[in-house]
């Protein structure tokens, strides 16, 4: 039998610091590599991002000058539509992201705790669900939910319509749930086994150990990856425009249609969508990194 090396082949069973080989450390529980997005976004200097946006915006100006409908007209149109796009469009993206995150978090906590359950059956089911939804394209999950779920239910004689955005929330919450399930599992497993043993020897029940001793210790560790997934989710909400849900991108396209679909409208309208998403997510990314740094020292 090949010797199993704790910390490499299996979870470390020691309170002592264990020096892991670099490859194993990337995969070690409790150090999710999925902060990569926040790290990338948060570590980019603001001026560099502004520069990229400015360059992209400047390029079509030359082409625009040739037609009667100028970029000036296009920006004027954007200005007229702006309040509508923010209050009816982007607000919807935020609502979808909030509700999705709430459902995804609730589901992720349940699945994540099942993944560390003493019952082998619960562990297997939770693992399978987690892997299935973690490794599926979000858009495909959305299509499946949107097209297979009924758009109305009849209760007796009354017909209740299910708005498509609620189905979108459900569809998006599946991958979020699966990814948060992994965050919870990793965090729980990052608490040293000595904590479990000490609590067990004091006659705490498993439920008490989890809620009173283990989760309070790893809660902080879960916050940065949780916020990272929130930023990723928010950025993914425009996907639901492909399914006709009325949010920022859907309404931007409708507004451009109302303005006779001049190609000059594309840059101001979609540029605005980029800017408003960036303005919303960049502070979250910076905050995530700041929290991660603070909690890292505390350990």
């Amino acid at each position: 039998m090949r010797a199993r090396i704790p910390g490499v082949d299996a979870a470390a069973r020691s309170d002592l610091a264990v020096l892991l080989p670099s490859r194993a450390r990337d995969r070690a529980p409790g150090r999710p590599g999925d902060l990569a997005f926040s790290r990338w976004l948060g570590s980019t200097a603001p001026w560099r991002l502004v520069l990229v946006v400015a360059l992209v915006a400047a390029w079509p100006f030359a082409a625009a000058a040739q037609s009667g409908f100028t970029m000036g007209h296009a920006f004027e149109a954007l200005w007229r539509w702006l309040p509508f796009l923010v209050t009816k469009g982007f607000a919807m993206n935020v609502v979808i992201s909030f509700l999705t995150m709430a459902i995804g978090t609730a589901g992720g906590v349940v699945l994540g705790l099942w993944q560390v359950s003493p019952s082998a059956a619960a562990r297997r089911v939770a693992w399978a669900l987690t892997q299935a939804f973690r490794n599926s394209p979000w858009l495909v999950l959305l299509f499946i939910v949107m097209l297979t779920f009924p758009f109305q239910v009849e209760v007796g004689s009354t017909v209740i319509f299910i708005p498509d955005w609620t189905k979108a929330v459900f569809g998006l919450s599946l991958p979020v749930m699966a990814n948060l399930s992994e965050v919870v599992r990793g965090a729980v497993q990052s608490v040293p086994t000595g904590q479990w043993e000490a609590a067990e020897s004091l006659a705490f029940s498993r439920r008490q150990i989890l809620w009173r001793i283990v989760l309070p210790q790893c809660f902080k560790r879960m916050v940065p990856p949780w916020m990272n997934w929130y930023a990723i989710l928010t950025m993914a909400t425009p996907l639901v425009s492909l399914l006709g849900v009325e949010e920022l991108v859907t309404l931007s396209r409708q507004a451009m249609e109302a303005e006779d679909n001049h190609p000059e409208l594309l840059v101001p309208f979609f540029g605005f969508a980029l800017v408003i998403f960036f303005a919303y997510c960049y502070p979250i990314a910076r905050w995530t990194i700041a929290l991660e740094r603070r909690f890292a020292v505390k350990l």
Partner: protein
Amino acid sequence: MSSREATMNGPDWDPSQPIVSIRDVYKSFGELEVLRGVSFEVMKGEVVCIIGPSGSGKSTLIRCVNALNSIDSGSIRVEGQEVHDPDLDKLELRRKVGMVFQQYNLFPHKTAIENVMMAPVLVLKEPKGEVEARARALIRKVRLEGKEDSFPGELSGGQQQRVAIARSLAMRPDIMLFDEITAALDPETVKEVLVTIRELAEEGMTCILVTHEMGFARELANHIYFTDRGVIVEHGPPATFFTEAKDPRTREFLSQIL
């Protein structure tokens, strides 16, 4: 108090019988045989020290007493109650058996006094005020007055270990298990922890210690067991154990450590 003791005791245990009785215990981790037929008995109020080279199964043995590890075969009885029983109420057993670990394992998100109070409040459901008074007395007893509101991270190793002892005592156990509790401490702080253990022993607490502190074992133990490769090689009261060891393995170990 007396009614609690009556319900917590095993069905047919009377205090003149051994409080812990270990018979022919075998335990393997995969292909590694850790315990190969260990038997011994501890009477109420006795202090028993288990010594031996590392990897000889001493820690595993005491972890089996409060069912942190299961055993493969044999019998472990605590106050007449069989531990090696699939229907065992582990939580009931662990209320009677306290344990202190080498790495202290205090709950880092709770202060010293909260660490001590947690189990009586949450497990025994005792009133908070009563538990707090007892916890303060225990913290005084381990000489940590003034450290009640410190977090484990703010305490030295020796102080943390004494909080861990107070935390176990707060459950009013009948038996205390100590698993190499001074092994992670520097020599100056070892003493303060051993003083606490000595007081406990003098009060009549039944103690089973896995230890490398030979001087301590000689002074306090009623009985010393020497284990090697999963079996008890030699045992006896300290007066004879240290001077009249017969087995060559015991003599070699003692010559290295004394």
